[in-house]
Structure formats: structure tokens, C-alpha cells
């Protein structure tokens, strides 16, 4: 895309509130590549956070990014979502990210907000908004494209899906950690995008809600959406992900279905701790057990 058309697109987005909202996104047919990253390298302060990472994620897929602390999972998600990139100072990046077959940098924020939602790792809110108001914020990109009833219905559906309708009137600061995490997930679901990027959505949750969150993510993928999720819990990744990518020291050490990738030798190597991998007696899904 030339600089001229990029400038024109930016100008159009600038006056968008005055003229007309961005176009409704076209649906992505199952199997098409939604995210295509090639040769991503990110260096910060002399450290290489990502080193030549390639990743393609297709519509209808739930892909889990796993790996030890500092392996670059969140950095990779940050690059894919546009948070980490040449915009940052001191960036020495190379590689490219395409979302929906268009370079990431060519999308304007309003266009992108209709197509992909991001759940960040930490959730804090500056003012005591109510839960209903926070979830409704997910509908903000659709202002002018949707009527109020659709917005309200989508907001309510997202709250029902994450099990928080009873919290609707509560103020965010009065919620527990697990409730906050689910409210933020509901906001991301309410955005109704084809692509979802979730950074450790289960970190603050108990078992029941971990299962709830990942089964919601899996359902979305089965419906044809695209979900990229950073996970620490290998058991969850094995049970819910269609494919996993194991990151280690900024590189992708292995990728494929959990059954193919989660082997004792690979995981012991990547995590630098001996683990055993056993098939679940009932489902056959791989169970990862650290040797103690």
C-alpha cells in the first residue's frame, strides 16, 4: 500500500465521525488466514525478545501460545495486536504482520476495532464504572453501525456468557479479582470481532471459571471466529486449543496439535524442568505433570 493511499485512509478516519462510520467488516470464511506473521524480531534494550517468529492463524481456530516466563508470549501477542511495534521508541523490529490480508499498519484504529478485540493481562479502570457500563464499552466501535437494541442485546449476551449478569449494577472497584477478569472478558466478547487475542485470561480464575472462559473461547472458534490465547496452564492448552505454539527464548520451539507437540522431552527441555506427559485416562488428552 502506497504512502498516498495510507495518508488518504488516515484522513478518512480522521473525519469519520463527521462523515460516515467505517465499513462493516466482511466475514472471514473458515480456514482463511486471519493472522499472518513472518520473521518477527523484536529487540528491546539490547535483549532479543522475539527472534524470527512466523505464525499463521486461521479462521475457526483456537491457538494457544505457551512457554516459560520471558519466552516472548506476551511480546508476540503485543506485536500481533499492534501494541509493540515500530511506534515504540528504540524499536529495532523486522518482520511483518498481516491481519485479514492487509498489513497491520494500514488499518486505522476504528477499522481494526471492528475486527479484532484484545484482552490485556492486567485490568485496571481509572473510575468506578459499573459492570454494565464497562461491558457496553466493548460496543463503542460499532457506534453508528448498530442500533441501540443490538448493542444492548450483545452486551447482555456477553455478560450472560461469562456468568456476570448478577453483577451488572456493581462498581468495578468492589469486584474480586476473578469477577474483574470475567467483566473484562465480557467486554472483549461484546466487541463481537472475528479475531480475539486473550493474554492470560485465566490467570486470576478458579477452576470452574478457567473452564468457563476456555470453553467460551473454544465455542467462538467452533463458530468460525479466530482466537489467540496466551496460557500458562499446559493442561488447559492441551484440552482446549486446536493448535499450540511453544515459545522458548523468543523462538517458536514447536507448533502443532497439543497431542503432537506436548512431549516429555520437548517440554522438559523448554521449561528446564523434568515433566511427564500422560494421556488422560478418559479423554486421552495429554496431561503435563512436573516431576517432583
Amino acid at each position, binding site marked *: 500500500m502506497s504512502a498516498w493511499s495510507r495518508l488518504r485512509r488516515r484522513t478518512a*478516519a480522521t473525519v469519520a465521525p463527521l462523515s460516515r462510520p467505517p465499513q462493516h467488516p466482511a466475514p472471514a470464511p473458515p480456514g482463511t488466514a486471519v493472522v499472518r506473521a513472518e520473521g518477527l524480531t523484536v529487540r528491546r534494550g539490547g535483549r532479543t525478545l522475539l527472534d524470527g517468529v512466523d505464525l499463521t492463524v486461521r479462521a475457526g481456530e483456537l491457538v494457544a501460545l505457551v512457554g516459560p516466563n520471558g519466552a516472548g508470549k506476551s511480546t508476540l501477542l503485543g506485536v500481533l495486536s499492534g501494541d509493540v511495534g515500530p511506534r515504540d521508541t528504540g524499536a529495532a523490529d523486522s518482520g511483518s504482520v498481516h491481519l485479514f490480508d492487509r498489513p497491520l499498519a494500514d488499518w486505522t484504529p476504528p477499522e481494526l476495532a471492528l475486527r479484532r478485540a484484545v484482552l490485556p493481562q492486567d485490568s485496571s479502570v481509572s473510575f468506578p464504572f459499573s459492570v454494565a457500563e464497562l461491558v457496553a464499552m466493548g460496543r463503542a466501535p460499532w457506534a453508528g453501525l448498530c442500533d441501540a437494541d443490538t448493542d444492548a442485546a450483545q452486551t447482555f449476551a456477553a455478560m450472560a456468557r461469562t456468568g456476570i449478569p448478577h453483577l451488572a449494577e456493581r462498581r468495578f472497584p468492589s469486584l474480586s479479582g476473578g469477577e474483574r477478569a470475567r467483566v473484562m472478558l465480557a467486554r472483549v466478547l461484546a466487541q463481537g470481532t472475528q479475531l480475539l487475542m486473550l493474554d492470560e485470561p485465566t490467570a486470576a480464575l478458579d477452576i470452574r471459571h478457567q473452564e468457563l472462559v476456555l470453553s467460551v473461547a473454544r465455542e467462538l472458534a467452533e463458530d468460525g471466529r479466530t482466537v489467540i490465547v496466551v496460557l500458562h496452564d499446559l493442561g488447559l492448552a492441551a484440552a482446549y486449543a486446536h493448535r499450540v505454539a511453544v515459545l522458548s527464548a523468543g523462538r517458536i520451539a514447536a507448533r502443532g496439535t497439543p497431542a503432537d507437540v506436548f512431549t516429555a522431552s520437548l517440554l522438559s527441555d523448554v521449561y528446564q524442568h523434568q515433566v511427564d506427559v500422560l494421556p488422560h485416562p478418559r*479423554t486421552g488428552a495429554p496431561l503435563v505433570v512436573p516431576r517432583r
Partner: protein
Amino acid sequence: MTAPTTPTGAGEPTASDPAPGGRRVRHRVRATLLLTGLTAALVAVALVSAGLGAYPVPVDQVAASLLHAIGLDLGTPPDRIGQTVLWDVRLPRVTLAVAVGAALGVAGAMMQGIFGNPLAEPGVIGVSSGAAVGAILVIFSGLTVFGHWTIIASSFVFGLATTLFVYVFARSHGRTEVVTLLLTGVAVNAVAGAAIGLMTNFSQDAQIQTITFWQLGSVSTATWAKVAAITPCLLLGLAVIPLYARRLDLLALGEGPARHLGVDVERMRLVVIAALALLTSAAVAFAGIVAFIGLVVPHIVRMVTGPGHRILLPSSALGGGLLLMSADLLARTAAAPAEIPLGVVTAALGGPFFFFLLHRTRAKQGGWS
């Protein structure tokens, strides 16, 4: 490999499961009540305030005079002296007070939104003092490059520079920590105080009087010319509300999430900071340093209708006008015929309110950190 697909529809729909529509309606009713209540109170206090003073004019005559001015012959307007007092002294003062209060109220609410910090306020973080340095510099040097607008221009430049400085200095990861922000304010206020003190020290007596006026805050020298000069600044600042109110809500989630929801954060930052610097410096140029309006009003509004900026910003404008006009009424009638400086009255109201906020926050969440 199969994943367990549990039905995830309902998390036990509870008894008082409010239809989303009903909640919206209730919220809207509350907001409408607040806005109409504030407008009504503003008009009522304005009528009373315009009538009170050394030459009292009954409220019905004030109303009649105003209606007469727009071509409606209803009721009996006051006599000629009353008419002169009303139109040459009281009404410009009341109008200027409302304009300054509205500017400070909105500026405070915007600043809290853009800083992501409920304690940001032009006076507290030093933007008012910065703008005052600009204004006093003009008085001190006798500069008149842009005529009457020189003071506004100078205080705008200084106010904007101070805002940007505090914004850049106190922010990290899209938010400002309360302690850092307040300490930055302490430092900025100290530097501005030093500059003002230096200029006061080397000033003539006549200049010192004007400078003191700026430091204590007052709308007693109001004229229609000043009202005419502040109005475009106020309107320009208020024009930001419909464009950015919803995006300021999204900014409460943090910069990254706001961007992911389609907000061009950099542009919003520039526009809103320019608007709030314009509002603050216009208020400072015409009324001096009047502290705490931008802190007290948005907090009270948030307690009533919650933090949504679409209601918060217009309500803060109305509430700021109402509060400043009432404070000015108090300032000129409490010790009549003497006048208490306006800044003294608002500080006497705002200081205890600050204590109250501190106490409430400590009781609730163990303080700010």
C-alpha cells in the same frame, strides 16, 4: 482430540435480572434530572445573585428586566438606577462568574479523564499557577502585543506548557499515580510561586495590587468586554465534549484498550489537553487563581450519576458555574460592604472537601498509592 463443550449460556440468571433496556432508561432519567436540576438552580441563583447587593433589586424585577431585554414586556422592570446597577455591574459579574466556573469545572473533569486520575485538578497540579505566571508576566512587563488578548494569550501559553510538562512528567503506562501527580503539583506550584514572588518583589505598588488580585482570584472587575472575551474560549473548550466524551470513558480502561476499541489516543490527548489548557487559562486570565472548583464539582457529579463523561462533562460545566457564582455571591455579601477574595471562599470550601475525599478513600480502599 475433543474439547468438553459445556453450555455456557447463563450464570444462574438471578432474581432481579434487570432487562438491559430498563437499566438504560433508569440511567437516562437520572442524568436528565441532574442536568435539568442544575440548569434550574443555575438560573434561580443567577436571578437572586443579580438582585442582591448594596442596591437590592427584587427577583421579579430582575426577571422582568431580562425578559424586556429580549423583547418580552412582562412584569415591571426596575427603576433607572436599578437598571444601571443590574446591567453595568451585577449581570456582567454573574455571567463572568458562571463562565469561569463552567470553564474550571469542565477543565477539571477533562483533566481527570485524560490523566486517568481522580485528583487531577488545574489548581492542585499547578496549571493555574503556571497560567498565572503568564498573566502576571504580562502585567509586570507591561506587554500589550495583542491588546486585551495579551494576558489570555500569555496565560494560555504558560498554562499549556505547564499541562504538557505535568502530563509528560507524571505519567507512566498511560496512567498517573496519585502520589507522583500530587508531588509534581507541589513542585510546579513551588516554581510558579517563586516566579510570582520574584515579579511581585520588583513591581510597583499599582502592579502589586493587580498581581495580588490574580493570586487571590476575583470576578469583581467584570465587564461585558471580559465576558465577550471569555465566551469564545469557553465555547471552543465545550465543543470538545460531544466529540470526546465517549472516548474519555474508553480511556479509563487504559491507553492500550482504548486504542483497541478504535480510539486514536494520541490525537485525543492533543485535542483534550489543548481544550483544557484553553479553558483553564481563560478562567485564570479573567478571574485569577480560583482553586478546587475542578476537583469538587466532578466528584459530586460522579457520586450522583457515576463516572460516564457524557453526563459528567456537561454537568461539571453547569455545576462549576453554579458553584462559582454562589461562592462569588458569598464573597461579596458575607462581609458587606467589604469583599472577601473569591479564591479564599473556594479554597475554604475545597480544602475540607479534599480532606473528606482523603478520608473516604482511606476508609474504603486504604488510601491512594
